[in-house]
């Protein structure tokens, strides 16, 4: 029971999604519309799951006064304030929710990713090596693209942007396309296995 029903659900829903591509007519088309609308709602519930886990882990940490429990308080505080303001008074520009979004969320998330600029710089110096011909080719192409895509490159030599454009348009497109076709086939075989119940990893190990 615990396995059979989920497998049947996946099979039916998956097949409908495939068949509807070829059969636009009513019963199939309608079923497909219906599933789509439901999926959006179910997707939204996933966030409750994530937040529930967060509360569980950090609530536990505070309860047991584990090392760093103060940080967990801060985390739950941020969570609570955002939920109360957002659900209570709305989320449009002008609300307190939006104010918090703009002055807390925005700067912090941008800065998290801006850190990577520093790490790339240090890795460039310390780790990115032309250890063989392939890596050499990769680095040459990278340097040409990096020069060609900024104004300084053009100022240094007029041909840099032309070369970068060519790399992007021709060999890059060819390489990317080979990868894309390969990945597409991988997706087809994985999806097929999931729909037919040959692959069951998503249902958990038990």
């Amino acid at each position: 029971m615990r396995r059979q029903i989920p497998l049947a659900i996946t099979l039916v829903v998956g097949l409908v999604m495939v068949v509807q591509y070829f059969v636009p007519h009513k019963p199939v088309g309608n079923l497909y519309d219906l599933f789509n609308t439901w999926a959006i709602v179910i997707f939204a519930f996933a966030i409750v799951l994530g937040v529930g886990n967060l509360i569980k882990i950090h609530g536990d940490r505070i309860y047991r006064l584990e090392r760093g429990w103060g940080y967990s308080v801060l985390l739950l505080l941020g969570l609570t304030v955002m939920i109360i303001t957002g659900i209570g008074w709305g989320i449009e520009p002008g609300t307190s929710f939006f104010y918090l979004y703009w002055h807390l969320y925005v700067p912090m998330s941008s800065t998290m990713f801006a850190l990577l600029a520093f790490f790339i710089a240090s890795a460039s110096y310390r780790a990115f090596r032309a250890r063989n011909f392939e890596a050499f080719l990769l680095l040459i192409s990278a340097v040409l693209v990096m020069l060609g895509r900024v104004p300084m490159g053009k100022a240094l030599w007029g041909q840099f942007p032309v070369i970068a454009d060519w790399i992007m348009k021709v060999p890059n497109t060819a390489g990317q396309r080979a990868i894309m076709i390969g990945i597409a086939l991988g997706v087809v075989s994985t999806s097929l296995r999931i729909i037919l119940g040959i692959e069951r990893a998503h249902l958990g190990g038990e």
Partner: protein
Amino acid sequence: MGMGKKLSQIDRRIIFLVIGLAVALPLLFPIGLQIRVSEPAQRMYKAIDQLPPGSKVLISFDYDPTTMPELYPMNIALVRHCFAKDLKVIGMALWPTGVPLGEEAFEIAAKDYGKSYGQDYVNLGYKAGDIVLISNLGKSIPQQFPIDFRGTPLEELPIMKGVRSLKNIDLVIDLSAGFPGIVEWTMIAGGRHHVKVGGGCTAVSAPSYYPYLQSKQIVGLLGGMKGAAEYETLMNARGAAAGGMDAQSIAHLVIILFIFIGNLFMFLGNKGKA
């Protein structure tokens, strides 16, 4: 242990400082380097420019603040272009974080061109569902977005008159920071509902979208802050992206130099061993 080895084990914090300065100094003391427009950006510009006035353009704000430096200037420049051409712009988002960013861009551009909400542009807001949502929009837009971002029912908005589904949309512009993004729009809006799709993306993903450009599955593409700077140049309005290009140039040179020095050490080290 030679000098090379010592230098290659230099404290990372010195490298961090160098790259920080390479970005900060050109911002404080601009050089004003000239920006060259690449072909994919040119194509995007043409795709919008060719649309007759009154055409309906759907812009999806599928990005978040982490990619704002790249996509937000594009957002402003693209909306401006639409307004300059008197196109009707319908905004929406597959990323909740994109809605306020798109809203802000709308407000800035609308002020410049004297456009009014509901008449010339609308923001439908965010809806979960990713690919499934795009596919549903192919059947019906009002069913997926019964109300807009501000809570107004769609039938009360003049701009939505005659817009039932993606079929009534002349061009989809996607501002894409990843999944779901321009690939999903291309697959479903383009592949299944035959709407023209174009847009902008982060520099990280730009190379992998070139095959779609070559196959003409997307009409044009702006890649990263440089793409935004190119569009600002095309619109003759220097903005944040164009202003960042000097810093971008210097930082690239510094990184190239780092790679070169690092490899030189390896080369010298190998020679020493042999």
